[in-house]
């Protein structure tokens, strides 16, 4: 039967370990970035920034579109006023356009 000593022989560490340890202990402290937390923190910050900066308008437009689509799917039609021509209304935000719309009146039977 094989013994633990055969399966797990006791090995000697590389020589001069104490000398190396003392050299590390007494080395001047350098300001080092713990890179793993730094990388993971940077990634998280990038993802958050991308979410808020890149997709904000797109997300807002998608939300509006989803809402309009939702309304449309409920059978509410929308048409633009002013002879079906898009009429932009002034808004305070150059990235936002406003149009007059009204629900399409279903034909009365």
């Amino acid at each position, binding site marked *: 039967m*094989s013994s633990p000593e055969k399966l797990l022989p006791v090995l000697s560490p590389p020589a001069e*370990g104490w000398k190396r340890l003392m050299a590390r202990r007494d080395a001047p402290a350098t300001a080092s970035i713990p890179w793993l937390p730094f990388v993971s923190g940077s990634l998280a910050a990038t993802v958050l920034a991308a979410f808020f900066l890149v997709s904000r308008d797109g997300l807002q437009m998608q939300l509006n579109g989803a809402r309009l689509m939702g309304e449309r799917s409920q059978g509410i039609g929308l048409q633009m006023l002013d002879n079906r021509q898009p009429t932009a209304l002034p808004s305070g935000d150059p990235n936002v356009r406003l149009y007059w719309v009204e629900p399409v009146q279903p034909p009365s039977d």
Partner: protein
Amino acid sequence: MREASGISEAEWRALYGRLEKPLYNLAYRYVWRAQESQDIVHDAFLQLWARRDRMFAETADRYLWISVLNISRQRRRWSKAKQFLTGDAELLSFASLDSPELDAARVEEHSSLHEAIDRLPEKLRTVLLLVEFSEMSYEAISGLLSIPVGTVASRRHLAMKQLRLAFGDGRASG
């Protein structure tokens, strides 16, 4: 609560003299690289040194064993992740055995053994390595790992059984 007695430099040096080899052997069976294993041991001792004023001398052993275990596991996980991401099979290659006590003639034999140890479940490997290298009693190991004493014995027994099955009694005997 009593104040920490602190650890003097002489005590720290004595700890190193006594524990360097067994701690090294534990770390080596996680990372399989001599220099990296020594670095792990040094990391643990440097951590202890940084906290020496807040430590009790009588718990320093336990602190070092836990530190080396945790650092070894962390390094091993990182090596495996790097291996997965980069496809670099050398990162955990058993062919890169660089222990100063292994000669070329025994590399193949030790590669098989190292693979067998590496395939052990983490819980079994931890107990086995602590039992074989730490010279701690089963009671002390059970306190260190927060498991019952009987579990220490059974995990050690199971680990040895798996190693013998994997490695083969014929090659290991004599």
